[in-house]
């Protein structure tokens, strides 16, 4: 038997695009368990499971779970304190019209 291996967080991009338009691989996240902030692409993703389980590369705490049913999906981010997502520069609002 081989040791269970994991994939890197880049593999979450496709499944997450089903839910959001955000490119998760460019997002940063903070681990609720150990406080480390890092790229979501660096998470360890266990996919030989009933869902995707993404763990912090530092403490192995669960940061994200994504379950895909035939007609529904569940996203659990309780192990992620925040997601920091790059955004286009906000348009400066002109004065009152």
């Amino acid at each position: 038997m081989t040791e269970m291996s994991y994939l890197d967080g880049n593999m979450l991009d496709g499944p997450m695009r089903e839910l959001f338009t955000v490119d998760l691989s460019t997002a940063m996240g903070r681990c609720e368990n150990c406080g480390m902030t890092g790229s979501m692409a660096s998470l360890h993703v266990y996919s030989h499971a009933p869902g995707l389980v993404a763990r912090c590369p530092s403490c192995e705490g669960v940061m994200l779970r994504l379950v895909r049913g035939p007609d529904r999906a569940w996203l659990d981010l309780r192990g992620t304190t925040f997601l920091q997502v790059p955004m286009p520069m906000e348009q400066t609002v002109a004065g009152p019209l």
Partner: protein
Amino acid sequence: MGIVSPGFQGRPRTQEPALPPGQYLTEDFPVLSAGPTPRVSLDTWEFVISAENGSDHRWSWQELMALPQETPTVDIHCVTRWSKFGTTWQGVSLDTLLADVDTGAHFALAHSYGGYTTNLPLDDLRGGQAWVVHSFDGAPLPAEHGGPARLLVPHLYFWKSAKWVRGLRLKTMDEPGFWETAGYHDYGDPWREQRYQGD
């Protein structure tokens, strides 16, 4: 062409056991895991049943092995749609482990080395339906399949048979576990195809 009577072609095929709906049969034993495989030394291994009144019942590895052993042969059904017929295990019935536990709880939350949890009604762990098993096919249970010991509750989807089991917390209120909080069914009966919440 003559009429061939049934029975002239040898013994009738033995009846294949039925598969639950939506399942396929597999001969191998897929390894599913939601995280790194915990490595637990038998010197420090323990199994603990924590009753709702705060009392703990503990067994060391030696104490578990000294209890009456059973060798159930059962069919198992994974929610990822594979089923495997006629798996043989060795371990201790939960009836034996619960015998001296004074409880009025209706629910159990199984918890594992590595942090996994899964919830079951306590009645589903009684009546010869559930075991803490330490051997598979006559050999010690490999770590990737949940060794040193895992829960075996074959009448429910296999995510309820917690690998690397460390104990049970008995509860008056149902508390959903690792997959049950992320969309999976609270009970998980494969014959009623209770895969996801609301099924």
